[in-house]
């Protein structure tokens, strides 16, 4: 426990640092409507590093960094000009083209020098879990300096100024993104950039308030994501990205609740939930009738949650066949694990197993695997057959359930029908 926390706190400090600068840049990027510019810049920096590698410079050398920087600056010039060219084509389209071409050129270069693949991967897929105090020392002063510069030049950097200031904006942004992506990876950096800024934009108008909200939400989401990654044993970057996404979703709901009348918001949310339930239920009813032997996610989930459902549609014989098969499959699995374990230990402990014994273990393992697959086949076959038998009843029940759940005007129609019937009845 304490050990995992010892891993996590440098990662948390680095996240705070990244949120600090990226929430700011995110607001700017949202205002300029160049959402994917960070992907393009990161890819260009990676391309620069790949070129340096091809020319024989080692990774993490000043020369490689200089190449990355030079490519980023060049791309910044291009990006600054895209605003001028973007009269007939949206700027975002040009940015997308810069991104895919940079990515494709790197692939072509790497095809000539496969050793460079790792190089490129390292630039684009940083892992925040492995960020340490060293990284913090490197980025904190840099980001602080760039933040300060932007604060001093805030009147110039509105996005409407001259191209020189646009170039300055993209160049500094490129430097920040390049260092961040190497530490945290493309996905997480994109979340740091867009999510806090978007949440700020949802709840506030003024720049300062947006930034404050972004910082608060970003820091909180980072902490929650890191904690979840530890608690549920998940890859850190992916867990954090999902937390950021969840935070944005929650903010959307919260906004709806706060700003429209509370009752309409709830009503809309409930109606959306009911419609999707209806669609899922009706869809699986149809699937059951048309293709009863295929995967039935809804029925499988229901059976998983309430295993007693099986007693309803399986005959006693089928139930015992199912239980037998599952028991056998489990026995084969444990037996195979035992053999694997024994073989694994014999590699370094005690007397080495001779080649003949290992060959026998290997073929035994293979037959256990086949027998287990056979039992699994029996299980799907038994259930598939039973489902085929009851498909009309179950599908009718599912459809009825779908109708019940759907937010159609059933109550009113029912009432109207009764009125009609009463009217039609002879006195």
């Amino acid at each position, binding site marked *: 426990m304490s050990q995992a926390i010892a891993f996590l706190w440098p990662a948390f400090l680095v996240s705070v640092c990244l949120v600090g600068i990226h929430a700011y840049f995110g607001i700017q990027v949202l205002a300029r409507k160049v959402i994917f510019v960070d992907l393009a810049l990161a890819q260009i920096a990676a391309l620069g590093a790949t070129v340096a590698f091809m020319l024989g410079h080692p990774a993490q050398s000043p020369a490689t960094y200089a190449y990355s920087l030079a490519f980023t600056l060049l791309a910044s010039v291009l990006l600054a000009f895209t605003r001028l060219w973007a009269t007939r084509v949206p700027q975002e389209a040009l940015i997308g083209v810069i991104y895919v071409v940079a990515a494709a050129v790197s692939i072509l270069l790497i095809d000539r020098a496969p050793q460079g693949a790792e190089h490129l991967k390292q630039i684009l897929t940083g892992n925040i879990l492995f960020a340490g105090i060293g990284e913090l020392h490197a980025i904190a002063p840099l980001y602080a300096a760039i933040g300060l510069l932007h604060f001093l030049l805030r009147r110039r950097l509105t996005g409407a100024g001259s191209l020189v200031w646009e170039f300055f904006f993209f160049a500094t942004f490129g430097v920040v993104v390049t260092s961040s992506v190497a530490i945290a990876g493309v996905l997480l950096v994109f979340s740091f950039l867009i999510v806090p800024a978007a949440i700020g934009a949802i709840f506030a108008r003024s720049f300062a308030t947006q930034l404050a909200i972004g910082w608060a939400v970003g820091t909180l989401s980072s902490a929650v994501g890191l904690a979840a*990654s530890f608690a549920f044993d998940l*890859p*850190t970057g*992916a867990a954090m990205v999902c937390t950021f996404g969840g935070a944005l979703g929650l903010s959307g709901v919260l906004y709806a609740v706060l700003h429209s009348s509370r009752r309409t918001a709830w009503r809309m949310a409930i109606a959306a939930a009911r419609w999707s339930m209806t669609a899922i239920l009706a869809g699986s009813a149809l699937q059951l009738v048309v293709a009863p032997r295929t995967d039935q996610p809804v029925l499988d989930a229901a059976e998983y949650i309430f295993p007693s459902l099986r007693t309803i549609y399986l005959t006693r014989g089928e139930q015992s066949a199912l239980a037998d098969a599952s028991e056998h499959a489990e026995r084969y699995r444990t037996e195979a694990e035992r053999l694997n374990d024994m073989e694994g230990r014999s590699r370094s402990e005690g007397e080495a197993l001779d080649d003949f014994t290992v060959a026998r273990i*290997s073929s035994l*393992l293979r037959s*256990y695997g086949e027998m287990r697959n056979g039992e699994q086949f029996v299980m799907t076959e038994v259930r598939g057959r039973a489902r085929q038998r009851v498909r009309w009843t179950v599908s009718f029940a599912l459809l009825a359930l779908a109708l019940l759940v759907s937010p159609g005007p059933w109550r009113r129609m029912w009432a109207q029908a009764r009125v009609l019937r009463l009217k039609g009845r002879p006195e």
Partner: protein
Amino acid sequence: MRNSSQTKSILLCFAMMLACAYSVLAWSALAQDRVPIVTTTTDLRSLVEAVGGDRVEVISLVPAAMDAEEYQPKPQDLLRLKNARLLVRVGLDYDLWLDRLLAQADNPDLGRDGAGYVDASFGISVLEVRGLSVGPGHAHGLGNPHYWLDPKNAEIITSTILEALARRDPANVSIYEANRLAFLARLETKLSEWETKLAPLKARPLVAYHNSWPYFARRFRLDFVGFLETKPGVPPSPSHLAAILQTMRARAVRIIVREPSQPERDVAFLAGKAGASVVTLAASVGALPRTDDFISLFERNAEALSAAASAQ
């Protein structure tokens, strides 16, 4: 006058064409002489060369130092497959991308039941079979596919290759047999050298990034106690990392094994925390300098490991 010069030039043309045709014929006869063979990896290429000697022309589809699992076939590969008379693959779902390539290559001889199709995993005692096919590459669904890392397995692989070569080129079987025996004899003397070199590592547990080494570990009696990666391509979670670190401290692991295609920083991070050193090993021929063939691959790995062990 005019007529004779015309005749002369026609004759010259004819002679040139003849010469051309002859050289093309001679060249193609020379090329046909050598059996064109395609392998998926460089390791298999080296083993085919060991048996075939200069009577075969071997191309590996995956270039050296590229991750065979993430390989993206190129148009030229189709041509290579079309012209090949023998195809040698790793099997065990390691080079699964080959199946789609084969379907397009229009060379039924190399298809699964063709005379030119060789699955080198035939006859190998596969370790860590779990009996669930889960997908391509490093998922290890059909058991651990890194079987060429036991040098002893070269005996089985080369015998499979020999059999296939005998089918394709029966006239030269005796040459292939002699080549194979000479190679195996060389390997045998080297093997005992490597065993003495790696003997000091017997009591030293190791940690690796990816589970590539069970066959290597069994042959040289090494103890890999953990892997950074829980599943291929999925970065470790903090709790998994904490558990590995705990194991490393409890069992005094001083060496972490990394392959050139695996993230340097992640391994360095763990090594720094646990006070271990990182050893970069090649899991494939050509992945590192001085690993140009099957024997030098083990030579270099044994050297690197024993150097790391004696440095401590």
